[in-house]
């Protein structure tokens, strides 16, 4: 569990604490329960390491980490708080997001942003087609750009609009539509779970050695902490032809 050895009583305290936490967290989803216990276990390990002689810095390699007294362990666990309180906090934060910092974001801007994207995508998909048959054909490009500007998206999507307007069919429009969805997805997820730049270990075994169910940098849990078997895997790099960066949005267990 940890590099730090405590005396017998201290180890018993830690074991009891983690047992209480695991039992209290039975109401959580299995993934979150395992993650929470792993986080707290890691916290305890690092706190004990920091408490140990010569371990005042958690970044330092454990030197003479000897047995820690029961009082030291108990004090550290007191600072951590009762396991039941941690689980209550989990439940409270999981409620409905009331009071969340997310609510501090300007809602109007957020909704407007979403509407703007929808309008843009709609115009890119159908605007050109519809105006082509109703207005003078040569005015189509200018009209598309004008409509995009009216939607407030000209700055961001002007390049794509020009490409679309130069295209002659819906196939091109569908490709642009796919790119827009990618851009929107990346922004909506707050860059989480997506490497925009190519990580150094693409194509090689992942150094983090985590099991990923939901994605690379996001959902992976340390194998040991999750209680799962070690599963070396490789990152799957997806190079988008229209974007300069490389998107790595999958992290699958290696089949070897």
């Amino acid at each position, binding site marked *: 569990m940890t590099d730090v050895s405590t005396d017998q009583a201290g180890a018993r305290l830690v074991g009891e604490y983690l047992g209480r936490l695991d039992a209290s967290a039975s109401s959580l989803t299995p993934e979150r329960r395992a993650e929470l216990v792993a986080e707290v276990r890691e916290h305890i390990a690092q706190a004990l390491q920091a408490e140990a002689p010569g371990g005042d810095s958690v970044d330092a*390699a454990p030197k003479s980490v000897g047995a820690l007294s029961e009082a030291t362990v108990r004090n550290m666990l007191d600072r951590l*708080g009762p396991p039941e309180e941690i689980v209550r906090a989990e439940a409270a934060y999981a409620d409905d997001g009331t*009071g969340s910092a997310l609510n501090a974001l300007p809602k109007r801007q957020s909704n407007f942003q979403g509407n703007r994207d929808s309008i843009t995508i709609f115009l890119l998909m159908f605007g050109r087609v519809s105006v082509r048959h109703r207005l003078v054909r040569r005015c189509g490009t200018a009209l598309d750009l004008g409509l995009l500007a009216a939607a407030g998206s000209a700055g961001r999507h002007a390049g794509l609009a020009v490409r679309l307007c130069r295209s002659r069919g819906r196939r091109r429009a569908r490709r642009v539509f796919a790119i827009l969805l990618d851009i929107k997805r990346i922004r909506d997820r707050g860059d989480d779970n997506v490497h925009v730049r190519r990580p150094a270990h693409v194509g090689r075994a992942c150094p983090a050695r985590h099991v990923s169910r939901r994605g690379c940098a996001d959902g992976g849990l340390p194998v040991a902490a999750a209680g799962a078997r070690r599963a070396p895997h490789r990152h799957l790099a997806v190079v988008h032809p229209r974007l300069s960066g490389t998107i790595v949005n999958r992290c699958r267990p290696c089949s070897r």
Partner: protein
Amino acid sequence: MRGMEPGAASHVVTQLRRGTIEYCVLAVLSGSQEYAFELVRRLAALDGLVTSEGTIYPLLARLKRDGLVATTWQESDVGPPRKYYRLTVAGRRALDSFAGEWSRFRDSVDELLDQAGTGQPRTAPDLDASAPGPWQQQGGQDDRREH
């Protein structure tokens, strides 16, 4: 009325702490990415901000679900890989928005407390009992409001 009961001040402070702790987490992450233990330690080092260190982990999970922070795993020289937290664009916006609101709120409350004379004197720490109260010091009002 609950607000007038003895001990209500500590209740208010608890509510304030509960409401602002997530922004404190975002503020810690605004400078650089941190891994969880270091982040908790920095928050716990500030007086009265965190009562139970363990409750930060549920908060971090919530902030991550909301897309305000993101995580990456990084190798560590002294142990297993560590999960580092960093601020997302949405997290930065939320923090900036809160900072403006908090500044206005704090200034308003400080001003009222200063007028009521209940705030700590910010100048002349050796005021004796016979000295006029802050609400009587017309000339020193602006000086006392400086932080």
